[in-house]
C-alpha cells in the first residue's frame, strides 16, 4: 500500500493508473468482503465476482450507507477512533471506523498531497475558523478533523474567527506583522471564507498579498448564491488580495484521499485515488464531458469498506491525460449536490412542508 503513496502523485497516465491501482483495489475488495459481513452480503446481492477488469468494474457503496449501518472491517478493539460527519441536528451522521493503520495511511496520503501543493516548508498558517471548534474532543466531527488534519501543514497557527464567527481583526494584524515578508497559508471551509472571512478582511482594509488559500467543504451554499469557482476566486482576490486559491474535494468517508485543484483550475485524483462519473440512474460509467454522479475510489480505507464510494455529488471529467497540463489521469470538476428528491411517502405529508 505504502508503495502507492510513493508514486509520482499526478504523474501517472490513466493506463498506468489502472495497472497500478487495480490489483490493490481488488485485494482491498476481497479483504473487506471477508472482514465486513454486511459488505459481503451487499456484494453477494450485487452478484459481484472477485476479479475485476478495470477500476470501473469495482463495486461501489453509496456513502449514505455509513449512516445506516455499522460498516467496519476491524474488530471493535482495533478501532482507534470513530469519525462522524457533521450532519445537521436530527439527521443521521456517517460513522467511519478507523484503526491506527488506516489513520496513518490517511495522514501520510494527505501529507503527500499537501507537500506537492505547498512545498516542503511549513508556512505560518491562518485557520479561517474559531479555535473553539477543536475544544470538544468527545466527538471527531469532520469539520474539526479537517482543521486538525490541515494544521499539520502549517506553523504558528492563528484562528481568525471568534466563536460568533466575527473576524479577530487585531489578531490578524498582529499575525501579519509578525510574519511580514513571509508567505502565509490559509485554510478554511469554502463558505466560511466567503461569508465570514473575506468581507470582514475587506472592510478592515487588510491585504494578504503573499498568501495561498486552501479551501474545501463544498459548493452547496455558494451555488445557492450563484457563485462558481471562477467568481469565488475573483471576488476573494478582490476582497483580500489573495491570488493563489486552491479548492479541494474530499469526503469525510475517505479522509486523506483528496482531489486538489491544479493550476488548470480543475480537480485531479492523486496516484492512489480515482474518480469515475456514473449515470445517476443506470449507474453505468460515463465518458469525459458527461455530467453524472461521482464515484470516488481510494486505496486508503482498510478498516472500513469505503474504498469505492458512490457520492451524491454531480461532477464531470473534462479531460484524461490532458496534453501539456502536467497532469496525468483525469481532470474533473464538481458541480454540486444532486437535487433533492421530491418523492414523498404517506408518512411525509406533514414533514414535507415543515422542513422547507
Amino acid at each position: 500500500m505504502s508503495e502507492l503513496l510513493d508514486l509520482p502523485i499526478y504523474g501517472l497516465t490513466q493506463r498506468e493508473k489502472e495497472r497500478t491501482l487495480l490489483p490493490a483495489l481488488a485485494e482491498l475488495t476481497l479483504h473487506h468482503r471477508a472482514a465486513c459481513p454486511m459488505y459481503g452480503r451487499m456484494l453477494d446481492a450485487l452478484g459481484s465476482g472477485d476479479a475485476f477488469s478495470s477500476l470501473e468494474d469495482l463495486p461501489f457503496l453509496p456513502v449514505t450507507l455509513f449512516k445506516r449501518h455499522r460498516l467496519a472491517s476491524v474488530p471493535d478493539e482495533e478501532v482507534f477512533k470513530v469519525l462522524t460527519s457533521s450532519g445537521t441536528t436530527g439527521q443521521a451522521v456517517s460513522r467511519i471506523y478507523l484503526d491506527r493503520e488506516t489513520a496513518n495511511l490517511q495522514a501520510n496520503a494527505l501529507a503527500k498531497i499537501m507537500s506537492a501543493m505547498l512545498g516542503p516548508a511549513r508556512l505560518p498558517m491562518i485557520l479561517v475558523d474559531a479555535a473553539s471548534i477543536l475544544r470538544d474532543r468527545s466527538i471527531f466531527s469532520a469539520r474539526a478533523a479537517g482543521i486538525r488534519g490541515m494544521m499539520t501543514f502549517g506553523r504558528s497557527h492563528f484562528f481568525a474567527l471568534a466563536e460568533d464567527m466575527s473576524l479577530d481583526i487585531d489578531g490578524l494584524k498582529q499575525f501579519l506583522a509578525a510574519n511580514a515578508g513571509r508567505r502565509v497559508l490559509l485554510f478554511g471551509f469554502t463558505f466560511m471564507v466567503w461569508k465570514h472571512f473575506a468581507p470582514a478582511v475587506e472592510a478592515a482594509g487588510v491585504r494578504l498579498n503573499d498568501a495561498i488559500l486552501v479551501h474545501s467543504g463544498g459548493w452547496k451554499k455558494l451555488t445557492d448564491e450563484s457563485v462558481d469557482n471562477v467568481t469565488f476566486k475573483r471576488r476573494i482576490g478582490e476582497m483580500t488580495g489573495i491570488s493563489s486559491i486552491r479548492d479541494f474535494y474530499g469526503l469525510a468517508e475517505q479522509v486523506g484521499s483528496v482531489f486538489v485543484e491544479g493550476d488548470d483550475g480543475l480537480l485531479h485524483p492523486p496516484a492512489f485515488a480515482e474518480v469515475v462519473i456514473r449515470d445517476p440512474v443506470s449507474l453505468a460509467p460515463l465518458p469525459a464531458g458527461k455530467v453524472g454522479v461521482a464515484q470516488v475510489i481510494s486505496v486508503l480505507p482498510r478498516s472500513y469498506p469505503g474504498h469505492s464510494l458512490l457520492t451524491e455529488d454531480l461532477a464531470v471529467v473534462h479531460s484524461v491525460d490532458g496534453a501539456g497540463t502536467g497532469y496525468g489521469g483525469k481532470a474533473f470538476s464538481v458541480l454540486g449536490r444532486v437535487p433533492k428528491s421530491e418523492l414523498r411517502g404517506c408518512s411525509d405529508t406533514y414533514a414535507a412542508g415543515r422542513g422547507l
Partner: protein
Amino acid sequence: MIERLRDAADAGALARRVAAAPAPSPFAEELLAFTSELSSVILNDRRSRPLPEVVALGYWLRPASMRTLADRFAGLNSSHAVRVPAGLALHIPPANVDPIFVYSWILSLLCGNGNIVRTPARRGSVAELLMTQISQVLPHYPRIAGSTAFVEYGHEDAITEALSSEARMRIIWGGDETIRHIRALPLPPRAKEVVFADRFSFAVIHAAAFLALDDHAAMELMDKLYLDVFLFHQMACSSVRLLAWCGTSEETRKAAGRAIPLLRQVIERRRFSLEAADALAKYAACLSLAVELPVARVEWGDGSLAVVDLKDGEPLHWPTEPLAGGGLLLQAHVAELASLAPMVNLRTQTLSQFGFEAEQLAEFLRMLNGRGIDRIVPLGSAMNFAPIWDGYDLLCEFTRLATIG
C-alpha cells in the same frame, strides 16, 4: 379557486362562512349532475389522457358509477334509520397521492356535508390539473361552491386549529407523523376524526397461471403490474412493494424469468423516468435490504426497476425501514398463499393478485384472522380508489344515523 390563508383569523372567518352555507342533501340530483359534468370535463381533457390516475378519477365520477354508489347509500338507510350528513368536514390530504383530495371531498359532498379541503402543500402537476378542471365546473353549482372551500397554508397549527373549530369531522390522509401531529390539535367536543395511517401493499401471482398465459396476455398482465407498482412513484399506501410468485420453485423461477423482462418493456414503453436523487436512494435501499433480508440478488438493470430477489425457503418479513419507492420491487417465491402470512401485519393494506380462486383468497383472509389486509384486488387495480378504504365505509363514516321508533 384556492383560498390562501394567512392567519388564524382568516381561517376562522372562512370556517364560519362554510359552516353557515347550506349544502345539498345526500345524493341530491344537483350533486349527481355536478359529478357527471366533472367526469366529462376530466375525460374530455386531453391533458388527462397520459395520466392513468386522472382518467381513473374521471371514470369513477361517471353517472353509472355514481348511481351505484347512490343505490348503496340508499341501502344504508332503513325505515328505522336515516343517514344524515355528519356536518362540516375538514380534509387533510396526503402529499404523495394527488387525486385523494378529490375523492375525499366528493364522497363527503355526496354525503351532504360542507367541506374545507386543504390542497396538497406541494401540489404536483396532477393536483394542479385537477384544480383547473374542478374550477371549470364548480361555478355552475352555487350551492356546492358555497359549501366548499379549497385552502392552502403552510404548516401553521393555529390555522389548522381555527379550521377545526367549526368542523364536525376531520379527515387525515396519513401518514403516521401527520396524524400524530394533527390529532394533538383540539377539535370541538362533538367532532370526530377519520384517519388513514401508513400502510404497505404487495402482490401475489399464481406462477402456473401466469405461465399458461399467451405472450399477449402475459404482456397485458405486466402492464397491470406496472400500474400497481409505478403509479404515484410507488409511494402510495396501495403501491405494490413486494411481488410474490406462488408455486413450485421451478414454476416461480420460470415465471419470474418471463415476467421481469416484459415488465421492463412496459416501463420503457410508458416512459417511466426517475430523478437522480430517487435513483441513488433506491440503490442505497437495495444494498440496505441485502443486509436486512435474505436477498439472493439485486437486479439493477437500467435503474428504472430494481428487483430485489429474495432467497427461496427463508421466512418472509417486511424490512424495518420504510421502503424507497421509485421502482424497487422485492420479489419472493412461495409454495402457497399461507407462506405469505408472516409478512402480513396491521400495516398491510392491499393484496393485488392474479390467478387465485375467490375461495383460496377467502381462506387466506380467514387464516390471517384480521391481522392485516383490508382489500384483495385483481392485479392492476391496487390504485383504484374505493369508498370502502382501509376497512372504513366512508359513506358511513361521513354520515350519522338518525333513528326512528
